[in-house]
């Protein structure tokens, strides 16, 4: 007995998840680029394109529900489909973070404010790499790497803490720029949250393979490095 039909549909959903992840990765990098270049047109385009991610998220949800309803998956198959629902929701939220960065670009316009773009780019690059690896680990059910990947989040946190301090310092020194600085805090916060959510994907990968729901991160984020 084989499960060719179920296997085929699971592969299709995996492909859709990979595609959504690529869209989110690109949106994140382009959003940061729009901030760097203060490119309102690009920001607007990325902002609007988030609806594609949302639509694809609902398509995946629908596909998963159809498999549960028609194929009666159990054990590993059931855990995999349940994890897909969770992961696609994480990806959709990450898409929202990219959209949030575009909103900041639009709100900043050409305001004379110092954007720590180098650090933001480094954070974004790391977070996108983490997401890419996490989805690869999920697709390949690579538990050892899923366990290791959240350690990279420490690098994101390190930059985040540094930049956050600098922005708050500039708020104190230049109170006239407080609104703009506040927007920049949102940018680094969004990227930091994106990396956090990668950990959730890693946890789901472990769950699919082992059946155990583990917490990969014990330290509360706000206390790290402070």
């Amino acid at each position: 007995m084989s499960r060719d039909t179920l296997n085929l549909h699971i592969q299709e959903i995996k492909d859709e998840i990979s595609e959504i992840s690529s869209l989110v990765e690109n949106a994140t990098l382009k959003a940061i680029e729009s901030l760097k270049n203060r490119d309102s047109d690009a920001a607007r385009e990325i902002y609007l394109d988030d609806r594609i991610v949302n639509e694809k998220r609902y398509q995946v949800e629908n596909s998963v529900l159809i498999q549960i309803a028609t194929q009666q998956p159990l054990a590993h198959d059931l855990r995999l489909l349940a994890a897909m629902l969770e992961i696609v929701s994480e990806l959709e939220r990450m898409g929202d973070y990219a959209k949030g960065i575009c909103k900041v670009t639009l709100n900043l316009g050409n305001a004379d404010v110092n954007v720590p773009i180098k650090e933001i780019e480094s954070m974004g690059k790391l977070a996108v790499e983490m997401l890419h690896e996490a989805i690869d680990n999920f697709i390949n059910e690579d538990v050892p790497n899923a366990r290791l990947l959240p350690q990279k989040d420490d690098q994101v946190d390190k930059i985040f803490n540094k930049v956050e301090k600098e922005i708050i310092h500039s708020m104190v020194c230049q109170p006239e720029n407080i609104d703009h600085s506040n927007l920049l805090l949102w940018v680094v916060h969004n990227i930091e949250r994106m990396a956090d959510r990668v950990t959730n994907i890693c946890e789901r990968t472990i769950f699919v393979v082992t059946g155990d729901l583990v917490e990969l991160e014990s330290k509360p984020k706000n206390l790290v490095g402070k």
Partner: protein
Amino acid sequence: MGSNASVPENEFAIETENLDIFYGSFRAVKEVNLKIEPKKITAIIGPSGCGKSTVLRAFNRMNDFIPGAHVTGSILFHGTNIYAPTVDPVQVRQRIGMVFQKPNPFPKSVYDNIAWAAKVNHYQGSVPDLVEQTLIQAALWDEVKDDLQGSAMSLGGGQQQRLCIARTLAAHPEIILMDEPCSALDPTATLKIEDLMRDLSKYYTIIIVTHNMQQAGRASDFTAFFTMDTDRAGKMVEFGHTEQLFTKPQHRETEDYISGRFG
């Protein structure tokens, strides 16, 4: 065997120890060590030929009717091996009843199907009361109360099966064995039997053999997975809470079977 003793706390309804079941020289089932919780529903699942029905029939010595069938090891019921020479198999079957795959009511009235069970069990109480009580317990009373003298054979398949359950209840068993009780029924009748099993499990221990894994998942508290070993003998691979076995089985063979990848 003690009679009419309720199952003490911490005692299993049935406990097998190194149970082997043979048909002549062929060992059909081997080394089964299984502890059935009282007043719970236990499902036995597994591919064809894994010995699940053989094990079920051994629980009330139904295999005695098959020439050459015999067991080694023991099946303990209230601490007594039901295969001990001093044990009366008729009494075993009274205390451990069975419902079969195909509904098998007698070609008599609904009333007489139950009254027959009362008669063979030398029931001393009011037979009309017993008929009513058992039909209520079997969730059939409302459908047949106005025509108790009507033929059982004119009932629908699901109703016939519930009548057979009522007939089993009339013997006041402690344990009800069910061998694929829904395989001849439509989905609606199947769900009615499953609801009935849930109600009955408040008072009785139920052991069900089913090919339908979704049924095992829906209806049982515990599940035992059997498969066939390389020597063609059936063996129990895994036993545990149904929720755990269906979401996080401990053995690869169980995983492969329940996810439909072999069997």
